[in-house]
C-alpha cells in the first residue's frame, strides 16, 4: 500500500547499460564432479509453491532467537490483528465438546480415579489427609458461616455466579494454604514453587481442517483465477483467554503420565469437527495473538503444576441444556484451560503453533466451587494444528477427567458432615506429584545466548522490542478506527451501483483489502530535527527491529 520511498528506480535503458559492464565470473576448478549432481526437482504447481512459501515462514519463526520475537513474528502478517475465534474459559456453548476436543486435539477419557502415575503417592497422601482433615473442615465452616463479609444480595443469575465464584476463591485459597503448609517440609518442590492468585492466561494458535466460511468463498468467487480453489482450506486463528483462581508453578516440568510415543496411538484419535465455529456460537474478534501463561518471559518458574478454576458460569447457562451438557461444559472448560496454559508455556520454551513441541508437557487442573470438585490431568503432546499439519499429524493430546465429586455432604449446625477423604486425597496427590529434571534439551528452538529480549546486547534493539512486545500483548485499540465499509456504501455503492460518477477512492473500489496489511507496514516514528545527532544527520525516522519472517 505505502509506496517504498527513497528506492532508486532505474530506467530500462540504464539497466541495459549497466549490464554491459557485468563480468563473467572465472570458473572454479572444483566445479566439476565425477557424477552429475542435479538440484532437487521442485514441484512447480501453485499449491506446492504456496506451501514452500508458508514453510519458509515457519522456518523463519523457528530460527528467531528470543521468545518475544517469535510472538511478534506470529503477528507479523496482520496490522489490525487476526480475526480470532474467541475461546473463553468460562463461556461454553451448548454441545461444544466435539468442537473443543477437535480444536485442542484432545482425547478425553472419563475416569473415576487419577491415572496410574499417582498411585506412588497414595500412602503418603493418606497420612497427610489424616493430618489436615480437621483443618479443612474448619476452613469450610469458617468461609461458609463464620465470616461477616458484605453480603451480595443480587439473586439474578449473574449475582449467583458472582457469589459462588467469590466463595470458591476464598475456599480454594484456604485449602491451598493448608495443604502447602503441611507438605512444605515433606516434599522439596513446594518451597521453590510460586503461587499466583488470579493470573492472566492467554493462548493463541491456528486451526486448519475446518470448513471454509461462506464469506471467504463468496470473496473468492469474484476472482476468475480462484475458480477452482473456492474451497481451499484456510487457517482459523483461535485465542484462548482465562483466569484461574490460583496456580502453582515451578522451574521444572512435571513428568508425563504416558510415554511420548504413546501419543501417536490411533486409539486417541479425535473425531473431526469441520463445521465453522460460528455454528456452535463462538464469535470472532480482531486482536493480536497472545501467549501468556501468567508471567512475562524471563521468570524462571515457567512450568505449571496445578491450577484451580471456578465454575460459577454453570449457573448462568440455560436450564434447558440439562445436566449432561453441564458436565460436558466442565470437561470443555478443563480442556480449554489446560491446553491454553500448556500452549502458552510451550511458547515460552520457543515452540509456536507452527513448530511442534519435541517433548510432552503436563498439567493438573481442578475445577471447584468449594463444594463440588472435579480433577483433570492433561498431557500436551502436540500443538501444531494448522492446515499443513492437521491431516498428517499423528499425535494427540490426552486429558483424564473425573466427574464432579462432593467435597463434603452438607453443613449442619456449624459442622461439616461427611467430608469425602478420597477426594481430598486426590487433591493432595496432585500436590505431591513432583516435577523432575528432563534429560533432553528444553529449548531447542531458542538461541544459545539470547533466549529472551533481556539477553540482547544492543540497547536500542532491546528497548524497542520490549516496548513493542508489551504493547502488542496489551491489545489496546489503535488510535485510528478499524477500516470498515459503511452501510450506505454497501447499499449505494456495492449492492446497487448508484454512484458510478464519483471518484473511486475507497479501498473496496480500488480492489484493496485493507486488512491485508503487515504489522511493519507503517512509517516509523519521526525524529525531530533538534533530536538528531550533531552535526548533521539525514536520518529522519527511528530504526525498527521487527523480526524478519
Amino acid at each position, binding site marked *: 500500500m505505502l509506496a517504498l520511498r527513497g528506492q532508486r528506480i532505474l530506467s530500462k535503458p540504464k539497466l541495459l547499460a549497466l549490464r554491459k559492464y557485468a563480468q563473467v565470473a572465472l570458473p572454479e576448478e572444483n566445479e566439476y564432479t565425477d557424477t552429475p549432481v542435479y538440484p532437487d526437482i521442485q514441484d512447480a504447481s501453485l499449491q506446492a509453491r504456496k506451501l514452500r512459501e508458508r514453510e519458509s515462514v515457519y522456518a523463519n519463526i523457528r530460527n528467531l532467537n528470543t521468545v518475544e520475537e517469535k510472538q511478534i513474528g506470529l503477528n507479523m502478517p496482520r496490522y489490525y490483528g487476526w480475526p480470532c475465534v474467541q475461546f473463553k474459559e468460562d463461556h461454553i456453548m451448548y454441545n461444544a465438546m466435539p468442537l473443543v476436543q477437535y480444536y485442542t486435539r484432545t482425547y478425553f477419557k472419563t475416569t473415576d480415579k487419577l491415572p496410574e502415575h499417582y498411585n506412588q503417592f497414595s500412602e503418603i497422601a493418606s497420612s497427610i489427609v489424616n*493430618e489436615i482433615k480437621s*483443618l479443612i473442615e*474448619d*476452613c469450610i465452616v*469458617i468461609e461458609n*458461616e*463464620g*465470616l*461477616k*463479609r*458484605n453480603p451480595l*444480595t*443480587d*439473586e*439474578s443469575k*449473574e*449475582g449467583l455466579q458472582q457469589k459462588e465464584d467469590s466463595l470458591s476463591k*476464598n475456599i480454594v*485459597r*484456604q485449602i491451598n*494454604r493448608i495443604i*502447602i*503448609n*503441611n507438605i*512444605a*517440609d515433606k516434599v522439596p518442590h*513446594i*518451597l*521453590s514453587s*510460586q*503461587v*499466583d*492468585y488470579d*493470573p*492472566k492466561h492467554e493462548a493463541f494458535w491456528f486451526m486448519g481442517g475446518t470448513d471454509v466460511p461462506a464469506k471467504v468463498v463468496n470473496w473468492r468467487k469474484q476472482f476468475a483465477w480462484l475458480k477452482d480453489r473456492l474451497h481451499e482450506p484456510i487457517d482459523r486463528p483461535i485465542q484462548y483467554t482465562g483466569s484461574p483462581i490460583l496456580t502453582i508453578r515451578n522451574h521444572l516440568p512435571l513428568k508425563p503420565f504416558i510415554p511420548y510415543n504413546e501419543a501417536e496411538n490411533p486409539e486417541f484419535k479425535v473425531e473431526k469437527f469441520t463445521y465453522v465455529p460460528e455454528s456452535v456460537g463462538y464469535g470472532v474478534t480482531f486482536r493480536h495473538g497472545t501467549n*501468556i501463561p*501468567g*508471567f*512475562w518471559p*524471563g*521468570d*524462571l*518458574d515457567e512450568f505449571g503444576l496445578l491450577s484451580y478454576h471456578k465454575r460459577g458460569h454453570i449457573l448462568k447457562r440455560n436450564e434447558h441444556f440439562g445436566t449432561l451438557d453441564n458436565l460436558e461444559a466442565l470437561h470443555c472448560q478443563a480442556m480449554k484451560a489446560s491446553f491454553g496454559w500448556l500452549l502458552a508455556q510451550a511458547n515460552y520454551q520457543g515452540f509456536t503453533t507452527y513448530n511442534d513441541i519435541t517433548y510432552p508437557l503436563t498439567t493438573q487442573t481442578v475445577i471447584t466451587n468449594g463444594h463440588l470438585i472435579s480433577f483433570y490431568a492433561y498431557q500436551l503432546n502436540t500443538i501444531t494444528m494448522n492446515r499443513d499439519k492437521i491431516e498428517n499429524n499423528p499425535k494427540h493430546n490426552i486429558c483424564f477427567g473425573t466427574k464432579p465429586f462432593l467435597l463434603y455432604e452438607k453443613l449442619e449446625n*456449624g459442622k461439616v458432615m461427611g467430608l469425602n477423604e478420597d477426594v481430598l486425597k486426590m487433591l493432595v496427590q496432585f500436590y505431591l506429584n513432583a516435577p523432575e529434571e528432563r534429560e533432553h534439551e528444553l529449548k531447542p528452538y531458542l538461541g544459545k545466548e539470547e533466549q529472551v*529480549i*533481556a539477553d*540482547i546486547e544492543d*540497547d536500542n534493539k*532491546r*528497548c524497542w*522490542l*520490549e516496548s513493542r512486545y*508489551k*504493547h502488542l*500483548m*496489551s491489545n*489496546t485499540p489503535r488510535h485510528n478506527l478499524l477500516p470498515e465499509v459503511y452501510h450506505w456504501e454497501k447499499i449505494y455503492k456495492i449492492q446497487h451501483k448508484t454512484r458510478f460518477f464519483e471518484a473511486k477512492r475507497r479501498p473496496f473500489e480500488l480492489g484493496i483489502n485493507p486488512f491485508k496489511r503487515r504489522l511493519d507496514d507503517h512509517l516509523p516514528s519521526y525524529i525531530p530535527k533538534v533530536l538528531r545527532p550533531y552535526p548533521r544527520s539525514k536520518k529522519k525516522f527511528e530504526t525498527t527491529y521487527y523480526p524478519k519472517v
Partner: protein
Amino acid sequence: MKLSRVLYAQHIGFMFKKHWVIQGKRVPIDSGVEQYLKEKGINVEDALEFVKEKPELRERLDIVGPYERPLPLDQNHPNYKEKPCYTLSNTSVLLEGICQAQVLTKTVIAEDKLPPRIEELAALSAPKAIHDGVKKAILSANVFDCQQKKLPKKKDLERPAYNFPRILGISDRRRNEVLTNRLLQLVEKSSDTDVTCNKYILNDVDCTTLFDKEEELIQFQDISNILVTSNKPLKHEIDNEDIPFIGIPDLYPIKHTISLPAQHFYDESSKYPIRSNISVKYPHTTWLHYNPTEVNNLYEEPVTPIQVLGRSLTHAFTIASAFAKQLYGEETKDLPEPVYVNCIQTDGQRFHFGIFELNTLNVEGTEGPKNVWYCKNDLKLYDSSRYLSGIPVLENYNPQIYGYINAFYNC
C-alpha cells in the same frame, strides 16, 4: 470589505434555519369548502376533535428489574440517623496524620521501639532459599506480573499541557496483593506446621468501629487486606519504664474531627469480620496496603508521609477496638486485659511495622489509661525493581524486612 458580500454568500446553516422558520408558520389555505357547506346547511366539525379519545387512566407499574434497586439515600432509609457520624474510610487520610490519630484514639507512641522478643526473632537469619523466594516475589510483583492496566498519567511540571503516551503496567493494588501474599506464603512455608495450624488468613475483610469522643460520634471503616488471626490472644511482654513515649499532642486551633466528612447513614454497632463462635477469631497481624492511586486527602492535596503513618495507627485501632467490643460488649470502657494487634503497612517498597496495645475504649480527654503504639517505620525492602531499558532489575534488596515479617508472624 463590504458586509453585503458576506451576506450574499450562501450559508447552508443560515438557509436551513430560515427555511425552518418559514415552513413552521404554514397557514392552511382556505379552500372555501367550509363556507360552501355552511350555505348548504351542513354542520362542520373539527376532525381532530372527532378523533380525539379520552385519555385512559393507567395504574403505575412497579417494574421488576434484573436486580433490586438500592434504596434512595433520604430520611426514610433504614440506616438514616439524625446525629451525624464523622467517618474515616480506608481510602481517606487524616489531615494531621499521626498526631490527629493519636488524639482520636488516645494513644501514646513509642517511636522506633518494638518488643524485645520481636527484635530477637527478627535478628535470626533465614536460609538463602527463603531470601531467593523473597526476591522472586519482589520481581513477580513489580516486573513479571501480566497485569496491563492504565497507570496514572505522567505529567511534566515544566509543560503541564503535554500529553505523554499512556503507560500500561501493574497497578499498585495488584503489586501490593502479589507481594504481601507471597511474603506471607514464604513465612508460612518456613514456619512449623504447629504454628500455621493455629493461624488463619483472611483476605480483604472489612472492619468497622464506632465510638464517642466529646459528644461526637466517630467511626473508622477499614479494610484489612490480609488479616492473620490465631486461636489464642496475642501477647507481648514489654517493659514500659525506660521508653520515652511521645505524648498526646494538642491540635489547637484544629479540631480533631477535621477532614472527617459527617455521614447520616451508618450502622450503630461496630463490626469485627469473624463471628464470636469461631475458635481462630483473635486478631494477630493485619496487613494494610497503601495504594497511592486510591488513597486521597479530602481536598485532593498529595498525601504526606505523616498521613500514611497515621493510617497504620487508625487501622490497628479499628481492628483492636472492633474485636474488643465484640469480646467485652459495646459499652466497655477500660479493658480488663489489653488487646494487642500487629500491623504492617506497605506500599510495596516501604514497610511500616507497628504493634498496637489497646488498654481503653474511652478516648475522651488525655487523662487516665491510654493506648500504646510501638512502631518502627520506613524500612525499605529494596531500592528499585522494574524494567531498566528492557532488563528486569532488583537493586539493593534488604534482608532485614523478612526478619521482621517472620518475627511478627511467629511471636
